[in-house]
């Protein structure tokens, strides 16, 4: 494995990453020597399924994939005692720009993910789990397959895990390159062998999910946190972080910082702490100009808002969001308009084409940006961008991709409108590059 860049070891209240960096942690024996699978044993042998779900509710854990929905509440939506098959589907299709934390977890401790999955499956009464992993993740895939093999050999997966009469199986399905599969209903479509286009909700996956069955969908990091919650107790976990955003989460810090990495932070830490203390701040002689606090879909925040805290409430108040925890930092040598253009290219490219505002709007925005950046712009282009941005947002599309594209325009307008005016009205750029995609 490559050099570990990010949190590992016992320091700083690391909950997930405490044992990361331990040699061969991906092997089941080493994982167990560090206390691995004790939570599963406890859950299967000492706890009622409803008590497990309650423990997760008590912990206040919120989904780490992007939407931040209360995990325990989501689990309780699945009616456990119905005879029909149920599934747990794990979203390992990490593809939000600037986010690498699920890969970090899978490469360091695949068994921690498996343990979380098994606990969740038992809690909601699913005998079968499917991990949907993005196709480009070759190494995490190999490690997962190896870990699943080990867990089967040990009997943790199989007809009677830990002696409990509750058959458990985990299988892996590889994605094939589509950002939209990170959206839960698009992921389900893909798992069913279709083009990944989001479904209309309701029905929600908890009622009608994979192959028409009740399905619990959780992100890798969310489930990887579950063993710790079972071990330490929900109430103890809830003491970490803030009241409404308890716990720790992994933030991927990338871009113009000295020490990019995947850092575990207690929610409530400020972005200044994350970007400067953990990631080393921007290169010498440079200043932070703008940062994306939760992946490219999270509305940008300017340097002046570095003291915003990482909990979801503070980010919502700052008109942004925690999203996937991808903190992209851009310094003052780069141009915000070009960066926004690059992201709009991304959203236009990744639109699945189902909803008209997103299918058309992304391309419109890209064309406006191209004119502006070719010094061919005017107030007309800026007004059009504003109009497209509005049309993409506020529930006009089935999923969040359209909103995300709109937020890029909207938030860069909000904080950096003068740079747009420089480009469109005065045909000049006050800073550097960030060019188009190749």
């Amino acid at each position, binding site marked *: 494995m490559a050099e570990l860049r990010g949190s590992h070891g016992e320091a700083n209240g690391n909950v997930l990453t405490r044992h990361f960096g331990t040699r061969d942690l991906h092997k089941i024996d080493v994982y167990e020597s560090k206390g691995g699978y004790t939570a599963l044993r406890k859950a299967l042998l000492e706890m009622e399924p409803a008590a497990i779900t309650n423990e997760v509710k008590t912990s206040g854990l919120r989904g780490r994939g992007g939407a931040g929905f209360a995990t325990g509440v989501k689990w309780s939506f699945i009616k456990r005692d119905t005879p029909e098959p149920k599934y747990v589907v794990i979203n390992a299709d990490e593809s939000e720009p*600037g986010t690498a934390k699920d890969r970090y977890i899978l490469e360091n401790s695949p068994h921690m993910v498996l343990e979380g999955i098994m606990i969740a499956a038992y809690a909601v009464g699913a005998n079968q789990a499917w991990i949907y992993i993005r196709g480009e993740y070759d190494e995490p895939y190999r490690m997962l397959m190896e870990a699943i093999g080990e867990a089967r050999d040990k009997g943790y997966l199989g007809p009677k895990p830990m002696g409990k009469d509750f058959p458990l199986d985990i*299988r892996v399905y*590889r994605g*094939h390159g*589509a950002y939209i599969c990170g959206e839960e209903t698009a992921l389900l479509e893909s798992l069913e062998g279709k083009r990944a286009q989001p479904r209309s909700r309701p029905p929600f996956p908890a009622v009608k999910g994979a192959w028409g069955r009740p399905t619990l969908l959780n992100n890798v990091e969310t489930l990887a946190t579950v063993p710790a919650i079972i071990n330490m107790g929900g109430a103890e976990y809830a003491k970490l972080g803030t009241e409404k955003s308890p716990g720790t989460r992994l933030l991927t810090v990338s871009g113009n910082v000295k020490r*990019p990495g995947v850092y575990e932070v207690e929610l409530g830490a400020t972005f200044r702490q994350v970007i400067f203390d953990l990631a080393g701040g921007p290169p010498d002689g440079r200043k932070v100009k703008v940062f994306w606090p939760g992946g490219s879909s999270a509305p940008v925040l300017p340097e002046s808002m570095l003291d915003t805290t990482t909990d979801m409430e503070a980010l919502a108040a700052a008109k942004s969001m925690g999203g996937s925890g991808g903190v992209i930092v851009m310094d003052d040598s780069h141009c915000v308009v070009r960066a926004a253009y690059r992201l709009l290219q991304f959203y236009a490219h990744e639109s699945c084409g189902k909803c008209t505002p997103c299918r058309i709007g992304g391309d419109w925005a890209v064309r406006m940006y191209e004119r502006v950046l070719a010094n061919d712009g005017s107030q007309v282009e800026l007004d059009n961008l504003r109009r497209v941005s509005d049309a993409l947002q506020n529930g006009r599309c089935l999923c969040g991709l359209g909103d995300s594209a709109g937020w890029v325009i909207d938030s860069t307008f909000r904080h950096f409108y003068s740079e747009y005016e420089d480009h469109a009205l005065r045909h000049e750029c006050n800073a550097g590059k960030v060019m188009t995609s190749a």
Partner: protein
Amino acid sequence: MNTPRTQSQGREFAGTPGRALSQHVIAEIRELPGRFPQPRSAVMPALDLAQEELGYLTPDAMTEVAEALNLDAGYVEGVATFYSLFHMQPIGKHRFYLCTNLSCTLRGANELVDHVKKAIGVSEPGELSKDGLFSYEGVECLGACEYAPMARLDHRYHYDLTAEKVDALIEERRSPRPHLTSPHGGEGPAARPARKPRAPRKKKADG
């Protein structure tokens, strides 16, 4: 779509004249639906097998996948063209999937793309190098942002890329030393797509 019918190259190995995919691949594909709650889920794993044999997906191959799975050929093509990891054109033996999203671009990804183009002698994404070995594609975030700029090449991630590292990766592949060649990719430089399925990896594809 006007794809050259290079699948004739497959015949010498497959021994199935007039077919794009060899019998053993078709047989493997027919087994896939049983692994899922509903058979349709097999379509992408099946396309994987087809692409592994041919290097990319030809219309004939997609039709044969459809026949093996009792699906409509148009449906299969519709799925294949939706996902960026299915290729409708030859991609050469080694494709650089260079991340060009924001985190990598902020650390020099565009300069790297220019360098790769020059180094393999092509002017646009998807174009094959003269020796047929290389091509490149600028892709969206590959989820390894702490190692930016990075790329995926030959089912591996390559981190902290520089022009020198790119040159070394290319050189290793142009003149592979014996111990660097994989068991199924050891034949010298050629435009031929990889034909042998990587059986061990795929066998476990459904866990």
